[in-house]
């Protein structure tokens, strides 16, 4: 279902659902992924990883491995240049180069289980893995810190001896708090004093992984002239190139990064892990080297999204207006600074207009893998806390939860709690559409068995979306088709959504634009496919390139008709003479005459975008709880989202459904299961329980089109906002079903069952709300 704010221009291509250009290759298995890369003389690499979450390396001897037959190269941290501590912009990631290098391969200390210690290149994978067994490492285990509470406690063991924290009082040493920042407006004490109802709760979340199917991989090959080529699975070829150049201290122009098809990323394939390792091994071996992670390494040593602790306090007056809100967010950064707590802090109150607010955010290092982006990084955790508390405030005031959200909804011109003024946003329109949605107005229905209970929950979520740099090249073929090379790795059908924007300008079918994802030597700088920016920014680049093509084609038509270019106009794929109605040529007809009118015709579009326009996603969850087993079934789900303008509605719906599905997994089952030594005990897809199609209902979508004024077609990013609300929506549905307020993820059967039986399990805070389910009057 699509709701358009007001009638817009009628489009020929935009808003249609053509078959994706890369569909055939993908469904026939011909698409090339990183693991498919093969060359004559290719060696296999393998990485030795730390068995300890925190230990000093007392001795590292690779000599036996180096002498093993079939081994061509061995590397350790000593093969990477010791870079200075300096923050660099990696395009959607800000990294400290020194820590990035140490993360790639430890120097004298390992700081998480799975931390690379050494790597080998050999004739085949078995030989490489056998060689790893010959590497002798003597560790001195150190005390581990695994939670923000442990890490922030006085006298806690230090994860990083050299960390200089940025605290409110200035720089701090001997700390695990990498950063503490605060946002503050108004006077929260006065605001809470005016409140008729105040709710304060603390929430705990565990680390979860993006769960992409394709593991990280990288293949590196050096030419005799010192140039390096890297094939990899990444969300951004250019950020890989720039990062590898910084780490290997070589010019960017000497590195070509070829991005292959990507089997999922969700933010987790923005950082680098294997590329410099493959490059160093290949340089030492004098042959190309390929590395592919196994699933255990993906879980243990790539970047999940953080767990942590969030305290939220919200007060509202008797009329249902929020008078004040406070939040304290403490996120696990992993072993190196850089959790998404900043984004969480900036998002947590975004759906609300608040007269008084205060937010504290702590980035805390712990002995776990360095976290990475995961779809709206940091915002899902924040929304779990805020949307749960908002629900409880509404319940105590006896106000419908959607009505309470609408009453307090942020609008264009409101000041966000982190400072800036909102531009045009669709928050109110999304909430209104949720209120009108079929699910919200349908009865919940009776439980399917006497021992089951049903509940409905709703939650709202916000994500900023990104702009940044993108490039697109177009070349017109003489048959009237157009070859497109664009710099964004295709995730979620972005080849199609970018090509469609060019096709709309050119007045030709989407199928007549043939998109190719370029590499760092074939297209201009393009930032990562991330931040929900690709259809917005690279699509804009395609729009500009196509507009340039039309202008040039007008010149070609003018030549054919021997009239001045100013006498020609272009509409719906046809060039017209303004004065002679007989003179009209289609785009294809002008293309057929390219050789006669000047030869090849191509154009480039480049952008550095701002004004992405944020997105809101309200979600409705109907659940049924088995009170004998604690299992929660999702019966029905609706995602309502402000999508700006849906270029390819099927792919927008897919993003909304995918975000909801991942959020449901996060809510109900997914967690890193740790022991007290920092070992993960469920590092396989058998034990790390992600939802399958059998676990989920058909997820309904309502696309609310509130156009972004900063894009010619009104595009807003759609990929991240839909993962923000689901965890809270499930928690609110469980409260409705059981009368229990869950404050800890995942809300797995054992936790739900414990809450049903006694309400005493950590995370099931029942004391303040154990008076039974709050059936709302309309059902």
């Amino acid at each position, binding site marked *: 279902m699509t709701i358009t704010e007001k009638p817009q221009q009628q489009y020929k291509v935009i808003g249609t659902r053509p078959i994706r250009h890369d569909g055939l290759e993908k469904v026939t298995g011909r698409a090339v992924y990183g693991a498919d890369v093969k060359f004559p003389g290719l060696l296999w690499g393998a990485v030795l990883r730390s068995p300890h979450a925190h230990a000093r390396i007392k001795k590292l001897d690779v000599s036996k491995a180096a002498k093993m037959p079939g081994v061509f190269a061995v590397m350790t941290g000593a093969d990477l240049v010791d870079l200075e501590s300096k*923050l660099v912009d990696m395009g959607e990631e800000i990294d400290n180069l020194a820590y990035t290098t140490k993360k790639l391969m430890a120097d004298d200390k390992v700081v998480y289980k799975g931390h690379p210690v050494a790597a080998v290149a050999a004739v085949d994978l078995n030989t490489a893995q056998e060689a790893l067994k010959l590497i002798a490492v003597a560790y001195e285990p150190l005390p581990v810190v695994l939670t923000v509470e442990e890490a922030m406690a006085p006298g806690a063991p230090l994860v990083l001896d050299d960390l200089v924290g940025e605290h409110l009082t200035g720089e701090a040493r001997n700390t695990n708090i990498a950063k503490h920042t605060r946002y503050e407006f108004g006077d929260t004490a006065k605001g809470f004093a005016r409140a008729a109802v105040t709710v304060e709760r603390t929430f705990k979340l565990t680390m979860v992984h993006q769960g992409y199917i394709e593991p990280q991989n990288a293949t590196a090959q050096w030419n005799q002239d010192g140039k390096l080529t890297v094939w990899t699975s990444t969300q951004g070829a250019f950020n890989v190139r720039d990062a590898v150049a910084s780490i290997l201290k070589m010019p960017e122009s000497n590195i070509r990064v070829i991005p292959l098809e990507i089997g999922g*990323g969700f933010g987790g394939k923005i950082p680098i892990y294997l590329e410099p390792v493959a490059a160093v091994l290949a340089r030492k071996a004098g042959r190309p080297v390929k590395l592919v992670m196994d699933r255990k390494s993906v879980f243990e040593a790539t970047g999940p999204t953080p767990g942590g602790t969030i305290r939220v306090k919200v007060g509202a007056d008797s009329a249902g207006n929020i008078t004040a809100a406070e939040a304290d967010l403490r996120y696990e950064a992993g072993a190196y600074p850089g959790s998404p707590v900043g984004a969480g802090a900036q998002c947590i109150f975004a759906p609300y207009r608040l007269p008084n607010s205060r937010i504290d955010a702590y980035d805390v290092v712990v002995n776990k893998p360095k976290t*990475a982006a995961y*779809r709206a990084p940091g915002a899902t955790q924040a929304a779990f806390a805020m949307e749960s508390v908002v629900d409880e405030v509404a319940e105590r005031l006896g106000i419908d939860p959607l009505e309470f959200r609408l009453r307090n909804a942020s609008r264009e011109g409101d000041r966000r709690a982190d*400072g*800036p003024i909102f531009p045009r946003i669709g928050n109110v329109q999304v909430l209104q559409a949720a209120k009108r949605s079929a699910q919200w107005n349908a009865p919940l229905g009776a439980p399917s068995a006497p021992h089951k209970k049903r509940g409905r929950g709703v939650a709202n979520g916000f994500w900023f979306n990104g*702009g940044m740099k993108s490039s697109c090249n177009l070349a017109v073929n003489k048959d009237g088709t157009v070859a497109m090379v664009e710099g964004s790795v295709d995730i979620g059908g972005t080849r199609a959504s970018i090509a469609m924007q060019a096709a709309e300008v050119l007045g030709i079918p989407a199928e007549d634009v043939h998109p190719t994802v370029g590499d760092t030597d074939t297209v201009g700088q393009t930032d990562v496919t991330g931040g929900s920016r690709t259809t917005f920014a690279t699509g804009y680049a395609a729009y500009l390139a196509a507009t340039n093509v039309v202008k040039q084609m007008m010149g070609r038509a003018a030549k054919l008709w021997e009239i001045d270019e100013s006498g020609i106009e272009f509409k719906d794929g046809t060039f017209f003479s303004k004065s002679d109605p007989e003179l009209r040529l289609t785009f294809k007809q002008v293309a057929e005459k390219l050789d006669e009118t000047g030869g090849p015709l191509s154009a480039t579009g480049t952008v550095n975008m*701002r004004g992405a326009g944020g997105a809101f996603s309200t979600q409705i969850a109907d659940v049924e709880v088995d009170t004998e087993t604690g299992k929660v079934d999702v019966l029905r789900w609706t995602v309502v989202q402000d999508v700006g303008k849906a270029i390819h509605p099927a792919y927008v719906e897919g993003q909304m459904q995918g975000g909801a599905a991942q959020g449901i997994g996060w809510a109900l089952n997914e967690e890193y299961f740790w022991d007290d030594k920092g070992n993960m005990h469920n590092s396989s897809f058998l034990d790390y329980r992600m939802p399958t199609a059998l676990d989920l209902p058909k997820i309904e979508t309502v696309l609310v089109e509130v156009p972004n004024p900063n894009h010619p077609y009104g595009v807003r990013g759609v990929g*991240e906002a839909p993962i923000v609300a689901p965890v809270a929506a499930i928690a609110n549905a469980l409260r409705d079903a059981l009368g229990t307020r869950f404050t800890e993820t995942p809300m797995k059967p054992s936790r739900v069952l414990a809450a049903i039986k006694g309400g005493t399990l950590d995370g099931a805070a029942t004391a303040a709300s154990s008076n039974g389910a709050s059936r709302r009057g309309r059902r």
Partner: protein
Amino acid sequence: MPTVFVPVPLRRLTGGEHRVTVPGATLRELVANLDARYPGFAAHVTEDGRLRPGMAAIVNGEATVDGLRTPLTEDAEVHFLPAVSGG
């Protein structure tokens, strides 16, 4: 004159002031004038003559793409916030 919303960690430099008005036709001029009035301010938001990596300057509600060269109007509203990374 542009209005600068002072980040909480930097209010120790401004004597606790939340908002200050500072002249500047560009972000670079504004930062220079801020630093003249509140010594140390520039070091927190810039590095090597550019915005610090990880720091976003928000002018009239939008993150700048021209960095310190961003032109400012008399009524501009400027925030210095941590850059947000997406996934």
